[in-house]
């Protein structure tokens, strides 16, 4: 059974890049286009890892993390937070909300794989 990973991002190109990269590496990937869809998916199924973008319409990544972590079933599921350099201070906020790590956009596929391997195994 390949490990399942949820990617929450409104940008199709990012979702695609993440999906392709991870699928090639043998993971199975579920895509969610915003926080609300992401929460729905995350609560319905326990993923090996969740990756979420910060800048999304309706619900920010930070809000998504807070909402997800309020559900006890999220305990032990690692979340990686995607942001850009300019969004200083968010890293700490995301960590406080319950993210395990973060990645700064733009990133290379190798970096993504290294982080996913480290976090999801």
């Amino acid at each position, binding site marked *: 059974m390949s490990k399942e990973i949820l990617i929450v991002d409104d940008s199709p190109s990012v979702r695609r890049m993440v999906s392709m990269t991870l699928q090639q590496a043998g993971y199975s990937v579920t895509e969610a286009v915003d926080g609300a869809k992401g929460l729905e998916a995350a609560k319905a199924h326990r993923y090996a890892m969740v990756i979420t973008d910060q800048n999304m319409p309706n619900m920010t990544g930070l809000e998504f993390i807070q909402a997800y*972590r309020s559900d006890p079933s999220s*305990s*032990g599921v690692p979340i990686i937070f995607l942001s850009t350099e300019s969004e200083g201070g968010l890293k700490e906020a995301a*960590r406080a909300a319950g993210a*395990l*790590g*973060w990645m700064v956009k733009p990133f290379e596929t190798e970096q993504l794989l290294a982080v996913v391997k*480290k*976090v999801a*195994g």
Partner: protein
Amino acid sequence: MMDAETQEIFRQEAEALMEALQEGLLVLKDTPDDLEVVAGVFRALHTIKGTGAMFGFSRLASFVHNFEAAFEAVRSGKAVVTPELVNVALTAYDLIAELLEGGDPDPAKDAELTAALNAATTGEAAPATAAAPAAKKDAAPAKIESWDLQFRLPQDFMEIGGNPIAMLDELREVGGDSVSVRLLTDRLPPIAQMDPRALYAGFQVTLPGTIKEGAIRDVFMFHEDQMELNLTAVHAAEAAAPAPAEAPKAAAPAAPAAPAAEPKAETAAKANKAASAAVAQLRVAADRVDLIMDRVGELVIAEARLAAIAAQLQNEALLGVVEDIQRLALGLRDSTMALRMTPLSSIMGRFRRLSHDLAETTGKTFDFIVEGEETELDKTVVEKLTDPLVHMIRNSVDHGLETPEQRAEAGKPERGLVKLSARHAGAEVIIEIIDDGRGMNEAAIRKRAIERGLMTEDSDIPRSEVLKMVLEPGFSTAEQVTALSGRGVGADVVKQAIESLNGSIDITSEPGFGTTFCLRLPLTLAIIEGLLIGVANDRYALPLLAVEQILELPEKLAKGDSATDVIELNNELVPVLRLRQVFNRTGTPAAHPKIVIVGANDTRVGLVVDEIIGTNQTVIKQLSPLHSRLKIFSGATILGDGCVALILDVIHLVTLGQEIEQRLKGNAA
């Protein structure tokens, strides 16, 4: 005003930093674009400057400031390391060393060297490959032996999906199979207050080998900010002390985190912001360790006395306690001895520098290779070894190696080789200084020895012994005095120093192919396992390691009355010394005397004794200078009943046996 302790701490720190600085500069000579080493040199300079200023060395601080600026230029890519820069930097190093020792060199030197440093980094036109050092090399700084790592992850680490086990696995991937992990459970709350999802444990990890710091830190990607992470590089020189977990009382109880801990972290080069490095490493004044060793020696003696009394009283309970104390005393002895063990690498920097200087002054090109610098020896041995080794390395380069032209003519590679190798062999350490030079000229040495009256024309002395004559006082064949061999010790001091360490020296040399000096040294000088023997009501100790066999004295030898005899052992004739006669003891020998076969330098001698008493922890006490002429004894020890037993010098006994054998052969002829 600085108190003595603070001063001492500063001195020790400066010493370590200077060692690192010199080491770094010498590494840069060979690998000028190793940015990590450049950074190490810079850090060392920076710390010397900072602490120097703090401790009132203002001239030093301002000079080092300029020195540092030169390396800042290299570090930031504005300049590159050139052989000139290394040479100037080494001279600048010498000036700092002099200033640190309280010397007052000509102030003009400061300006002169500063100008030279500037010229070496900025004066020259930027070389074409100025951008070259951009690529980071993977080589770790030469001296790191292992990493000590202590980390505590945030309590919610597992809650948010982290996996400490995976981290440990990653560390094992980085550090290999010999990574050791210890769980730190000191922050575990009482069970009633425990949150089952929280992570309370910390981890203490040792990663052996020269691993890049970055590789270790990568494991903690994302978490370094939220966790406690102490990463300390253990350098070769420091690895000697097996780091007691608690700081002993000696370490300034009033300010535990203050001066004692800080310099340590700095020396550990890879800076460690939280200065708890003292947990893993502790620098202790050598005489304190000596004091412990003395007391352990006294303890072992007292313990032996207790054992003797207990054996007399035949009290079961007392005997039990004695056994416990015996075990503890032995354990204490072993760990104290381990404290005294110092790796040879602690003095290697000096030799690398020496070889650099020798290459400069002699114009000979050669590689200086060190093997086994991690080999550990008793601190005293290491200290006393420095001068003899300096002499022998200098000798190898000065007299052993040929000039590049001569080598080319002889069909050898122009680059010569000088190798210093060290290894353990049983209770001894073997150190070899090997060169691939012209070898020793036996005929010239014979001639000179005859001139000096060390032997006669017709002496039948084997080649190996002839070669050793170069170590006799006043012996020197056509010695050209170079700038370097002008100072320092003579060859005879080498012999004396090695013998004072109960070691021996052998020389092998192949004309045209080079010379090897082989030193054999005992691991330790403080306490040895001894064999107690009885001769005419007196007791003597022999180093147990020198004892090869114990035999009943054969009937026909027992009857003989000559001072010496031989016994056949594995098809080899071994001379026999009757200790009763050696010590001029009268009276009736024991009914069943024994022969103890002892060996040294591949030669053996049999000692006829009246009685074998047993093994004993022999705490070696030096004989007074009045008795130092008695070569047959190497020291004395105190026995359990308070009596003194003299320790027999095996090397001397073996020579004695050989002399008598030679004399007998002479008579027979």
